[in-house]
């Protein structure tokens, strides 16, 4: 295990993003290469899972697009992820929010966690 970690330390660059948790509403800026052109696509949705650790950590973002649920798994340390912006902090009671898949409409909404400074 330590050898695997040492390999990651050498090869993978860890992305520095603002801290986010399951239930947070985020906007992921992902760079897409089309031939020679490069553009940035944003994927906006709720984080429903954060999985793994270290260099191979991933997170899943779920959004409703045209009435269809869409989930996308991002490797946290992918060089293609330009930025992760936290739009809203969610108030949830578990770290894996798979129950959202079975809910529609207002029930599928995550309550916002208000932070008072």
């Amino acid at each position, binding site marked *: *295990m330590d050898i695997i970690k040492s*390999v*990651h330390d050498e090869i993978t660059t860890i992305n520095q993003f603002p801290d986010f948790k399951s239930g947070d509403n985020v906007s992921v800026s992902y*760079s897409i*290469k089309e031939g020679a052109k490069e553009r940035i696509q944003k994927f906006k949705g709720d984080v429903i899972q954060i999985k793994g650790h270290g260099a191979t950590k991933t997170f899943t973002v779920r959004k409703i697009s045209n009435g269809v649920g869409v989930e996308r798994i991002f490797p946290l340390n992918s060089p293609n992820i330009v930025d992760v912006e936290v739009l809203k902090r969610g108030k949830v009671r578990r770290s894996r929010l798979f129950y959202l898949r079975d809910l529609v409409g207002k029930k599928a909404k995550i309550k916002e966690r208000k932070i008072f400074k």
Partner: protein
Amino acid sequence: MNGLIGKKIGMTSVFGEDGSNVACTIVEALPNKVVQVKDQDSDGYNSVQLGYGAAKDKNVTKPMRGHFDKAGVDPVKTLVEFRDFEIEKRVGDNVTIEDVFEEGDIVNAIGTSKGKGFQGVVKRHGFKGVGDATHGQHNRQRAPGSIGAGSTPSRVYKGMRMAGQDGGRRVKVRNLRIVKVLSEKNLILVQGAVPGHKGSLVIIEK
């Protein structure tokens, strides 16, 4: 054929230049000692015998001790012969990763696959099983089906694929790409899976 003996460390993934996520296996290959060099005059063919892993004194038999003494090297656990080794080496020399591999090389990986125990034909040979769960079928979903004709030949042909021990045998996986070579750590990253469990012996040949 050039090669090295190493140890499977485990799997991970690294990012390629285009940002793609590449699954790869980490193989640790410490410098291998050349124990014997065979050539056309001495043995009728060219090969190099490499040794891996220090052996305990009590585990070395007398004949093997003689073999190691002749080469003037410390006893090793594993000896593997590589035919037509293209790198010029003499007995007692070390063969390192740098000597043999570089990034982008296409290699074969040989190892002992994970033991699966006694398995049926569906897992062992990829049979589809017989028929449906319904339509009068009973207890047949993972059955092998017919194993041959009746009165002629009135026996089962040799080599008929049946249930039995699966895994735990020598497997060679061909055409794996070397993603990265970390020579100061004696590590190679091979794209894809390599047979065997973590810590098992792996031969990487080019």
